[in-house]
Each structure stands twice: as C-alpha cells, then as structure tokens.
C-alpha cells in the first residue's frame, strides 16, 4: 500500500507536533515528580593553614603491609579491623554472599595460599587431609586478606578506561570510581579476588548509623576494592585497619630500608600470596608470628 503526498505531509505534520508537545509534557511531569535524596552533613574539622586539611600527608615510595598473624587470636581481632574499614568506606552489607562487597576479609590457609596445597584434597595422610603437615592451629586459622597492591598489578593492565592504575608516587593500586564502566575485566585479572562489583545500588544497604558522611558511597555498576586508605594517608593518618589492629598490621614504606615493615621483613620469615604469578604483592604474612620465629 502506498501513500500519496497529501497523506505523507499529514502524517509528518502530526508526528512532528506530537513529538514536540510530548517532550515538553514529559519534562513538566518529570520536574514535578523529582525528589531529592537527603544525605549526611559534612562535619567541620579544625582548619589549618590549608583550608580543610589538619595534618600533613603520609608519603612513601611504595606502601606495603605486614600481617603479623600472632596478633590475631580471637575473631574480634579480625572483626575490629574489618568493621573499621567497612564503616569508614561506607561498604554496604547486601546480606547475600554472591553480592558481597569486600575490601578486607578473612579466609582459610588453604584458600589464602592455594599453591602451598600440593596434594589432592581427598587424599588423607595421617589425618592431614591437605597433606601439608602444618600445625593444627594454622589449618584452622583465619587469614586477613585485602588488595595486595601488587608492584606489577594485572588488574590495571586490563582496565579499558584507566579507571584503575598504579600510582607512580607510592605504588598504591588506585580506583577512580568516576571512570569505572563496570566491565569487570579487573576482577577477572586479579588473582586474589580483591575486587568486588556493585550489582545493586549500595546506598540503601548501608546502615544509617554506620554512614560516614566524609566518604562517598559507590554507584551501582562499578568495581571497588581496598585503596590502602588513600584518603586517610592524605590527612596524615594510617589506614583504618592498621589503626585498629593493635600492632597486627604494620604499614610502611617497602622502599625505605629503615621503615617498620622492612625491619620486620629483615628479621622474620614472611610469605606472600601466589608469588609465582609474578605480580609482586605488597602484603606480607608472618605466618608463625613474631613470637614463634
């Protein structure tokens, strides 16, 4: 069926009118329905010479961390660190494992150091199903895990938007939530499972009383992870977990011979997660703890 010129002009005119009128009407309706979310007040801290800054920032060539597991005995020892981080960074609790967002968390020896588990799990050797013959307490011990801030991070190489990169100044593997498009390549690239995706809008899943108004939340569809508390280092504070760890987490400059971390690593045997992958993690574990070595 064809249409003649007259019908065509009629149709074109009608559709033009409807579209112009429609857009205006929709805008009007939208404007009326708009409601603005309320947030929290930014607290005023003491203003120094620089407006808004209280202390000079902490700097290093390459930030690193030593986890001294002898200082982590009770579940509370771990939880204090995890809670401090969750609270400061407005990390949501979706209440579902598959949606979990985690910056710092715990896992077993077997999962933390899977390459130290050479035997088939079903094969029982004198009651040691891992075939590791390590102290019983170590098999049951929880290990504190976080982003390793690798010196050679695979996650940053795959990011198509440079939303994650290693800072040249201090080696921190940083995230720019503004630029993340949520492709999750970095999650696939990270061998440590340190990255989490926001499958849902996190805001409603942060308890009102836990909100930290000084730190933003994330939007739906971005990847997030531990950033070694960049925002706290800039304010002259150590990372939140380190502060709450009672000496169990030691934070310092790996490029500085005289730093606390280097002193510890010089005098104690430490291991890193999956070192054979060549990512050069900056988080070291003193397995036996300082006491036992």
């Amino acid at each position, binding site marked *: 069926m064809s249409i003649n010129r007259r019908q065509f002009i009629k149709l074109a005119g009608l559709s033009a009118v409807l579209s112009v009128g429609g857009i205006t009407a929709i805008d009007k309706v939208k404007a009326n329905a708009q409601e603005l979310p309320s947030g*929290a007040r930014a607290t005023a801290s003491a203003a120094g010479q620089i407006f808004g800054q209280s202390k000079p920032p902490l700097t290093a060539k390459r930030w690193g961390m030593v986890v001294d597991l002898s200082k982590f005995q009770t579940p509370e020892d771990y939880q204090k660190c995890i809670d401090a981080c969750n609270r400061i960074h407005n990390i949501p609790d979706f209440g579902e494992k598959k949606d979990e967002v985690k910056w710092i968390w715990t896992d077993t020896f077997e999962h933390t150091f899977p390459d130290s588990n050479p035997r088939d799990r079903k094969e029982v050797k004198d009651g040691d199903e891992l075939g590791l013959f390590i102290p019983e307490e170590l098999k049951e011990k929880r290990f504190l895990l976080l982003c390793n801030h690798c010196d050679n991070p695979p996650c940053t190489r795959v990011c198509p938007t440079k939303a994650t990169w290693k800072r040249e100044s201090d080696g921190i593997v940083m995230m720019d939530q503004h630029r993340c498009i949520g492709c999750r390549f970095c999650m696939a690239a990270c061998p440590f499972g340190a990255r989490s995706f926001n499958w849902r809008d996190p805001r409603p899943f942060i308890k009102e009383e836990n909100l930290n108004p000084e730190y933003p939340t994330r*939007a739906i569809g971005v990847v997030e992870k531990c950033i070694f508390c960049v925002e706290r280092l800039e304010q002259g504070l150590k990372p939140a977990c380190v502060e709450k760890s009672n000496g169990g987490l030691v934070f310092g400059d790996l490029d500085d011979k005289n730093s606390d971390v280097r002193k510890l690593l010089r005098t104690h045997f430490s291991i890193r997660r999956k070192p054979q992958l060549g990512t050069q993690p900056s988080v070291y574990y003193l397995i036996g703890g300082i006491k036992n070595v």
Partner: protein
Amino acid sequence: MYNGGKIMLGLLIFLAVVTFPFWYNLGTADTIPKPKIETPFIKQHGIKKCVESKDYMRREHMQLLDTWRNDAVRKGERIYVNSEGKRYLIDLQNTCLKCHSNKKDFCDKCHNYMAVKPYCWDCHFAPKENKS
C-alpha cells in the same frame, strides 16, 4: 479550495497543539533563582568568599570541579592554590560542602532551573540540612 473548512479546522488544531507548550506554561515561568549562601558555617566565619571570585565560580565551577576531581583522585594532588595564593584541600564533601551545607538552596536551585542533573549525588553525600 477543496475541503476549505476541514483544512482551516485542521490548521487551527495544528497551531493550537504546536503552541500548547507556550500557553500551557504561560505565567508559570520560574523566577531566576538566587542561590543562598547563608549557612551556619559561613555565618560563623563571616567570610563570604569561595575559593575563587563569585563571578568565576558562577561561570566555571563545573570545570573547576572536574579539574579538582582529576587532581584529587587521579593525580593525588589535594591542594588547590587559588588566584590569591590561598591554599585549600581539594574535597567536594569536606571542603565545598562544609561551607555550602545547603544543597537544596544552593546547588539544586540553579541546577533544577537549568534542568541539569549532575550525578555527583549518586555517590557523594549531600549534607544533612537543618530546617531553620
């Protein structure tokens, strides 16, 4: 003219519908918004000066905020030196909104008027506002 009456009627309806947005919104024009800067913090300090001049901020605040965002997050540079040599911590939530704690009367006023919807607030907290 064939079907003169129908054509004229059609034209009239056409004109009526085309001009509908104009006469529908007649008289409801919003007055040009005047963002308020009377917040407790500004009152307390008595300094009614932003990081740059009022005129500059009015014109360029979006570019400034974009630069600040890149400086703070990507370059790790947190200090902004303004045209007078004064130094400020680059931080939307803790520097800008410390003074401008009235998002509804400050940011939203013009943004709504201009129908721009910055997505800052998807992540950044708007300050809790006291009703006063």
